[in-house]
């Protein structure tokens, strides 16, 4: 019974759900289309529960971290406080403008998140100065291309050399595009084969270790 619930049933559900979606794509039969649509609604509901699971998980992990006084345990305290604060205020007041949740988000989270992201510019500059060397032919090509694109993507580039935007467009539309297409097609084929493996029950890692 345990084996059926833990292995066969999830495999059957995955097979059934996957095959239904594939059939729904190729047919306009209303019953199948409706069922596929229902499945999509179920997935969004499951997704909502997954978010809840994430909140429970981070709370449990953080409490254990604090209890055991693991390195950086102090940082877990504001995490839990603000998790409770945002969750509580969102449940009690909602998330619209003027609520506490919105205030925390707009006045605290947004500037902090933007600050963290903008720090990248400083580290990129420092890393480029120390590590971006024309040691090999490939590195030199990369360096020259990067320089052209960096200049071509800002208005100042046009002042330096009027054809730089066109050169940049050419780089983006030919060398870049051909590589990107290869990556996109490769990734799509990989996704298709992985989907097939899951539908047919060959790929079972989502079932867990036991």
């Amino acid at each position: 019974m345990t084996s059926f619930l833990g292995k066969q049933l999830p495999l059957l559900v995955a097979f059934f759900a996957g095959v239904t979606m594939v059939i729904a794509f190729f047919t306009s039969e209303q019953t199948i289309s409706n069922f596929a649509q229902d499945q999509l609604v179920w997935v969004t509901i499951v997704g909502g529960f997954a978010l809840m699971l994430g909140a429970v998980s981070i709370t449990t992990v953080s409490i254990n971290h604090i209890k055991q006084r693991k390195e950086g345990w102090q940082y877990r305290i504001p995490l839990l406080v603000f998790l409770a604060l945002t969750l509580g205020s969102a449940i009690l007041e909602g998330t619209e403008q003027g609520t506490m949740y919105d205030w925390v988000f707009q006045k605290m989270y947004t500037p902090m998140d933007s600050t963290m992201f903008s720090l990248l510019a400083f580290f990129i500059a420092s890393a480029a100065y120390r590590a971006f060397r024309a040691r090999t032919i490939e590195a030199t090509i990369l360096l020259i291309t990067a320089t052209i694109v960096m200049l071509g993507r800002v208005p100042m580039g046009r002042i330096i050399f009027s054809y730089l935007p066109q050169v940049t467009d050419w780089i983006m539309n030919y060398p870049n595009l051909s590589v990107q297409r290869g990556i996109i097609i490769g990734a799509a084929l990989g996704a298709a084969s992985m989907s097939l493996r899951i539908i047919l029950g060959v790929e079972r890692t989502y079932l867990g270790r036991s």
Partner: protein
Amino acid sequence: MASRVAEFLSSIDRRYIFLLISLSVVFPLIFKFPLPVAISPETQALYDRVDSIPDGSTVMLTFDYYPSTLAETEPMSIAALKHLWRKNMKIVTMSTVGLGGPSIAERVMATMAKEFNRTYGIDYVNLGYKANYTAVLLGLGTSFRAIYPTDFYGTPLDSLPMMQNVDKYGDLKFIYIVSDNGIVDYWVGLANAQFGASMGAGVTAVMAPKFYAYVRAQQLVGLLGGMKGASEYEFLVGSEGMATAGMGAQSMVHLTIIGLIIIGNFAYFWGRRRR
């Protein structure tokens, strides 16, 4: 002497580099100087497509971005909104990013609605966020109401005047995606490839190179790449905003980084030759 210069340049404290970058950002923001605007073909194509949509049509504008990239993405949303509302379009907004997207959408839409004197439910609707973007994007192709029975505020879609005749991608004239992540792949793969929805995108500079492939395949009608793309769109719309203001800073930072790379290489090769 020469080897000492090379050694000095190689071992320069990174805090001086940070200071240099800070100055490169702050200086052009204080002392503004005019810069030429070259419109890229991708931006022009997006603008032309939006411009060709009949006035009063219903379109979708997405807020698929995190607060960290607001500097690049928000000016795109604002410029797009100005363009769409000057043509009196009805706008459905939504987000596939739970962390911030709906709140950003609410703030931006409320601010712009005040400027353009638009009413919620009649001129625009915010659908908010639903978990699992793949299912959401696929589901919207058949029924908005199945995925979003209510809007961001919990109002049933049926009770919103604007949504009376809108229930699937086919009811929208255009989808304007503003994103800082790979969700554009899914918009193209699900909404465009499967349901034929016409769409264009504004993305961060770091994401833009990937999406040129979709522009050339005509799955995206146009593309805004980073703050530069946003500033070009602002120029076309005739309303210079934050992106245009940031072009000076971005130009200076790019030039500084290029200068640093040249100095770094110079020090490296000079030092190596000396040894």
